[in-house]
């Protein structure tokens, strides 16, 4: 049921699914204007896992939220485009209106968050929340399957049951044709009459239980009725992942999904994500600060520093040959037994009055004269391996 849905739509012409082009984002705070994103450019390709690495505050979370056009005040996107290459045509996500965004989010592009239990509403059951995504985007399917079931029942039933089925059937058919009709809205508000919706809910429940099984959640029917605070971290994260994959999105944004979990659970979830990615054929933008995770899971990696993408390469090439001085220092500073503890001297520059040129200038070993004056652009040093550094510029 799941694996065959939408596969047709996922056959894309272009390689890229989402392209972030030159994104500039500012935060307007009491202390001044924080220039958080300074011309970020990224592309996520079909069926790949792209890792987005960087320290806290470098702008990776903000970038990932922008892909859904979610900007948390006091932020504001100044310039740039985020192009979504869907099967039918290309959109600039940042210029979509609210209605289209509502259709895009959760359906074509989904997101999972760092703290799973915080991402779930504590007053609703877990199942209700997954069902919410379902009802929002896949209502038609549900209605259609309820209709087929009702028509079957109608053939076999008789007497009083017949009339019940007939009435429900007409209601559901109306939902397909004219969802905003007055009689439907009337029925939905009155408590007793509202029960016709139970068929749809049962149908959704069946599908969600299947989905939860896919995520290796034990005893899915019981978990469906549990509240977020009753679940362990790992379980909650699986539910959040289920919520994100419920509509088989083109792309999944994972914002540090394992950071708050125990190490053992972390490994399980990582494996789960990799597995699901293959099954669902989804692209993943995996935001993390952990290079180990990147090595495990990602196909390509983008390194961010202080609001810029400084290096972009496939994982093998990156770990073998880190090119940007920041990336090199990052890899050097990973502690290993027997090695002396190394850290990068200096601190991240203030983004309120950032330097004009390269933002890594004051901590860079190889600083050149032009570095503080002009910003380096991403150039290709070998196939598929880009760096933003004057050492490699023209």
């Amino acid at each position, binding site marked *: 049921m799941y694996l065959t849905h939408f596969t047709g739509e996922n056959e894309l012409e272009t390689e890229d699914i989402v392209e972030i082009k030159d994104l500039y984002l500012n935060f307007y705070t009491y202390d001044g204007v924080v220039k958080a994103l300074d011309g970020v450019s990224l592309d996520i390709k079909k069926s790949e896992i792209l890792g987005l690495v960087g320290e806290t505050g470098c702008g990776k979370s903000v970038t990932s939220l922008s892909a859904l056009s979610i900007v948390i005040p006091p932020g504001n996107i100044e310039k740039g485009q985020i192009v979504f290459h869907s099967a039918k045509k290309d959109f600039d996500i940042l210029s979509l209106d609210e209605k289209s965004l509502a259709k895009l989010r*959760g*359906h074509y592009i989904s997101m999972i968050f760092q703290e799973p239990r915080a991402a779930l509403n504590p007053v609703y059951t877990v199942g209700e929340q997954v069902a919410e995504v379902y009802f929002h985007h896949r209502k038609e399917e549900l209605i259609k399957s309820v209709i087929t079931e009702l028509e079957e029942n109608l053939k076999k039933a008789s007497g009083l049951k017949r009339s019940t089925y007939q009435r429900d059937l007409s209601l559901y058919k109306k939902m397909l044709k004219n969802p905003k009709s007055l009689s439907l809205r009337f029925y939905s508000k009155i408590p007793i009459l509202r029960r016709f919706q139970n068929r749809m809910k049962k149908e959704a429940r069946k599908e969600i239980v299947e989905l939860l099984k896919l995520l290796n959640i034990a005893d899915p029917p019981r978990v469906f009725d549990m509240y977020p605070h009753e679940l362990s971290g790992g379980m909650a994260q699986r539910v959040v992942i289920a919520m994100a994959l419920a509509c088989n999105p083109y792309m999944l944004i994972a914002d540090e999904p394992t950071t708050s979990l125990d190490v053992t659970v972390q490994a399980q979830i990582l494996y789960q994500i990799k597995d699901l990615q293959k099954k669902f054929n989804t692209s993943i933008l995996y935001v993390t600060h952990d290079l180990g995770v990147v090595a495990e899971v990602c196909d390509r990696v983008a390194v961010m520093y202080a609001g810029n993408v400084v290096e972009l390469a496939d994982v093998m090439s990156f770990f073998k040959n880190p090119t940007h001085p920041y990336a090199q220092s990052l890899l050097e500073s990973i502690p290993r037994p027997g090695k002396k503890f190394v850290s990068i001297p200096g601190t991240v520059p203030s983004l309120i009055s950032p330097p004009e040129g390269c933002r890594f200038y004051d901590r860079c070993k190889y600083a050149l004269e032009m570095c503080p004056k002009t910003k380096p652009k991403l150039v290709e040093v070998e196939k598929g391996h880009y760096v933003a550094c004057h050492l490699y510029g023209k």
Partner: protein
Amino acid sequence: MGLRDYIIRRILLLIPVVFGVVILVFAIIQLVPVNSRVAVFVSSGNPKELRPEVIQALIHENGLDQPVWVQFRNWLDDMLHGNFGYSEVWNSPVLPDLIKRAPATAEIVIISAPIIIFVGIFLGVVSATHRDKPLDHASRVISILGTSLPSFFFGVILSAIFIAQLGWVSTGRLSYTLEGQLLVDQSIGRYKAYTGFLLIDTLLNGRYLYFVDALKHLILPATVLVFIQTAVLVRVTRSSMLEALSKTYIVAARAKGLSNKEVINKHARKNALIPVVTLSGLMVGGMMTGLIITETIFRFPGLGNWAARSAQLFDMPVVACYAMFSAIVFVLANLIVDILYAYLDPRIRLG
């Protein structure tokens, strides 16, 4: 643990508190020296001018010279038999007076409470969702004014404007002439007071003019109550809503594709109302306090007025009875609120 167990546990916790309340009230009564307490039992003459022997006799007669615990037992015993004492100020037994006056106060509360709840929550939510826009600023100003404006000042101003200056309505529950007529009719049996609630009785007796008059007299006291309490409710709802809107699950809900309206109504509101529900319990206490003052200003013959006048003249039986009454109402209100809270928030009832 389940909701039922939680309810049972809360009710059990109630019992020591109620017991403590009773003890505290008794202690307050005991503060008054015995010679003074005797005054209640004097049926004729001026209590202050009694000869010492008479006072001693009265003390002995009414058991005021017994040890404390005996007195306490007697007092409890009396209360359980419905005897809450006798009021010197009103010259009548206390408990029947309470019952007689309760409907008047209840009418004010029944009219005010729905308005407070609906307007308060609505304004609070709107204020939070349209943060820093003109509506938000306006309701914040109103709510700050409401909390710093003493109810008695507001009441006096309203009374000066509408009763004295404009003459739209008089003090009390009914206008002077109508009230007189009603009393006459009641004594000859042409008007039957079925419930004590004017709004109901007047309709049942077919006296529509009186109904309107009673309603008119409820407006001013209700206005004072509503203004003050709504201000508090708006503030709390607003901050609770802002808190809820800043949570991660709101961002997650938006990332799921829900529209702004859906996010606010389905996700934020339910969470935001939880602390608000808790506060409403406290608001009941605030209303009872406000009623004392409001009824005094508008000379409304309800429980608040009764308690205020009695306190002014240091009439202990009435004050003690009213204190116990209000404590029990307050405790019950908080119990209901706690149960509601557990119902709304699964984290509480599932431990």
